């Protein structure tokens, strides 16, 4: 992976800070941080293990609950989860820096090449996992520990999913994502890369050759904007992937317009800025309060010098001889109070000169893979029950492919938890089958 300009966002704790912070933890009973973590990491326990000098044990506590514990230490919105629940959120105190301590413990395992888990006694059962992202890897890790043979079918040439390709390198470096994947591979996981179910992998083969299937294919490309000149618009995820893998984005230009206001939009904005674009602006058809990006992401973007334009929708891409020269937008009217009503203000069109337009308005659903497996879904959102079972016996699902907007957050930590639950459910299914 290429070097990337700019410093990582997260500052590493010094050994002294680690000691002070770990010893400041109260070791709460029935701790709210643990309850707030979607994977229920035993936070007081892993922090106590840092404090008592058992870093391997600390990493084990974290990774046992969350196979993506190293990347979650970097990408989790901790102020909404563990740190937000810390009893030290008082007027006079600040919460324990749980995310930073989790990073310290998992870094120590990663840098020391510490082997924590081993595969279980072989059961003779085979499980296929569609997608080698956080959910698929988490499921694979536990299934291997249960003793099942696991094959991951990954559409990219490397494992890790969005952790490897979709999260900006200054928030999550590729080596961390790949290390997590490697931990799974080392348990004896078979990996087939560039394998797309419904394209070059026959769904019938999966169902026939494996005792169970876990669908963890995530989501697809950014959907179309539906405006003239669309062909000149970059897909934010493709852009981040290219930037993260090559450290560059040829043709980015000096003025970049990003459409959308979620966390991926923030990543596209800050990535553009760090790659050298002088003026990077976000355009969003609704208001600041409706942004789906986390507050800390928004704050970070502001610190990086990003500009924001609210209540304006893209109308047309202006291109000259195949090159983008501007974006025509139209002003919108809506309340800033969360109301879904949005009106286009006729005649309010205006043009913003720019060299590149990047769209980050969400992700499409991978209907090919989902339909190929013949599981029920709601507009591409795979239907599962509490045990991650789809409508089809022996087929389970986890991660972004079951993420329905407005329900849970599409977070790495949620995907890891769902992968873990799916693995437990598969194990039960195979045991009884």
């Amino acid at each position, binding site marked *: 992976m290429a070097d990337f300009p700019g410093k990582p966002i997260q500052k590493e704790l010094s050994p002294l800070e680690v000691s002070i912070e770990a010893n400041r933890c109260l070791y709460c*009973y029935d701790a709210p941080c643990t309850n707030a973590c979607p994977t229920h990491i035993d936070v007081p326990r892993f922090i106590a293990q840092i404090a008592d000098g058992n870093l391997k044990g600390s990493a084990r506590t974290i990774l046992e609950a969350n196979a993506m514990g190293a990347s979650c230490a970097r990408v989790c919105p901790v102020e909404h989860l563990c740190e937000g629940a810390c009893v030290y959120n*008082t007027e006079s105190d600040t919460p324990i820096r749980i995310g930073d301590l989790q990073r310290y413990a998992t870094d120590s395992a990663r840098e020391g090449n510490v082997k924590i888990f081993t595969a279980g006694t072989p059961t003779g059962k085979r499980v296929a996992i569609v997608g080698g992202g956080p959910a698929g890897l988490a499921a694979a890790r536990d299934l291997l520990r249960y003793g099942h043979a696991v094959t991951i079918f990954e559409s990219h040439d490397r494992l890790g999913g969005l952790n490897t390709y979709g999260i900006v390198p200054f928030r999550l470096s590729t080596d961390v994502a790949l290390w997590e994947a490697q931990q799974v591979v080392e348990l004896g996981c078979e990996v087939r890369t560039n394998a797309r179910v419904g394209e070059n992998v026959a769904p019938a083969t999966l169902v026939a050759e494996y005792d169970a299937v876990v669908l963890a294919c995530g989501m697809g490309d950014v959907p179309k904007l539906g405006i003239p000149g669309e062909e000149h618009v970059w897909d934010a995820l493709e852009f981040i992937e290219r930037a993260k893998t090559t450290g560059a984005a040829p043709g980015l230009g000096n003025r970049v317009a990003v459409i959308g206001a979620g966390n991926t939009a923030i990543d596209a904005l800050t990535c553009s800025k760090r790659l050298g674009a002088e003026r990077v602006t976000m355009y969003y058809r609704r208001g600041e309060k409706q942004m789906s990006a986390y507050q800390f992401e928004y704050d970070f973007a502001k610190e990086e010098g990003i500009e924001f334009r609210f209540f304006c929708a893209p109308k047309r891409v202006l291109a000259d001889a195949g090159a983008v020269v501007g974006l025509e937008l139209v002003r919108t009217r809506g309340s800033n109070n969360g109301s879904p009503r949005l009106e286009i203000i006729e005649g309010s069109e205006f043009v913003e000169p720019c060299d590149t337009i990047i769209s980050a308005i969400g992700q499409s659903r991978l209907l090919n893979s989902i339909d190929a497996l013949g599981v029920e879904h709601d507009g591409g959102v795979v239907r599962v029950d509490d045990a991650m079972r789809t409508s089809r016996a022996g087929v389970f699902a986890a991660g972004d492919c079951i993420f329905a907007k407005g329900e849970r957050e599409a977070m790495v930590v949620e995907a890891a938890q769902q992968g873990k639950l799916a693995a437990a459910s598969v194990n039960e299914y195979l045991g009884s089958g």
Partner: protein
Amino acid sequence: MADLASNLAGIKSPNPFWLASAPPTNSGYQVARAFEQGWGGAVWKTLGTPIVNVTSRFAGFNYREHRMVGMNNIELITDRPLEDNLREIAEVKKQFPDRAIIASLMEVCEQKPWHELVKRVQEVDIDGFELNFGCPHGMSERGMGAAVGQHPDLIERVAAYVKEVARVPVIVKLTPNVTDVRFSARGAARGGADAISLINTINSVMGVDLDTWNPIPHVDGKSSHGGYCGPAVKPIALNMVSDCARDPEVNIPISGIGGVETWRDAVEFLLLGATNVQVCTAVMHSGFRIVREMIDGLSDYLDSKGLRSVNELVGKSRNTITTWENLNLNYKIVAEIDQSRCIHCNKCYIACEDAAHQCIDRVRHGNNGAYDLVVDAEHCVGCNLCVMVCPVDCIDMVRVDSGVPAQSWKERSAAAVSTSG
């Protein structure tokens, strides 16, 4: 402003803060620096036949991120010639005539060497002697230090030798490495000592290195037990001071030693019956300058209590310590949790549940899954454990009127006997 001047058995100092005989009082240079910062007195590093020391010599006992909660040393008495020490004592005394300089002495248990040493040392202008019967390591193997302090009759005998020739007050420094320190203190009193000082350091092994399996500290892979001191020993020292202060057969002034780091610690020693205090570890941790805060704090405290002299504190709490049989069995307090200050760490809950009397309940509060921690006041035994573990001090122990007059075990037993009789 209150008067801090102190007088221990005739040894006067402008305040009750002395440096204990230890590494910080090893030389004239150090003691002069200490006096510049305001120390009221200094007990010079023990004089005797100069010894040879080993390296390393010290080790700290750390608790979590707190360093030197306890400390241990295997250093011996002075390793410098007597004449050098005496010359420096004279120089410092001349420079700081209002401060107390006490010469700590150690010798073998024979009259002649003690007489010679005492006479030689008091040729310079010193304010008192302190007999080191406490050093628990090294010197004790040669029949000195704690080897003397562990035998009340030897304490008495040597104290008497010194008193035969001493022209200044004599303090006997006691070792805590005995079963009942009052026997040692009584020996000192019988020998004619003018005061006692306690405690010297406690026998200790500081630890073992988990990688090398060597002891800590180690000298080329080996160690011997050392002397333990610092904040962690204060409760042990307070108990021994209190024991001596209440013993009618001791009845001589006490210089309190053991974990004194702030004016607050000093006040506790004084309240239990010490006339002054001696400090070492805190200085080894932070330097002589800490005495400025000690003086300020003590002075402001005395003013806040409306006391004119530090001596008014001495022994004020002496009689609050008694034997268990005299405690009121009918006194009852229970825990009360201030819900508005509780941060719900549940530490009181788990402590009470697992280690006390299962008297804190988690009561669901509303529908959002939150719990209140509520004390079962009927069954609470008032043990204080919840207060101790609470990180935000939101638990108070409140008095409950038991409706029964005070009665001690002793009284109850006597009443039972008289009833049955």
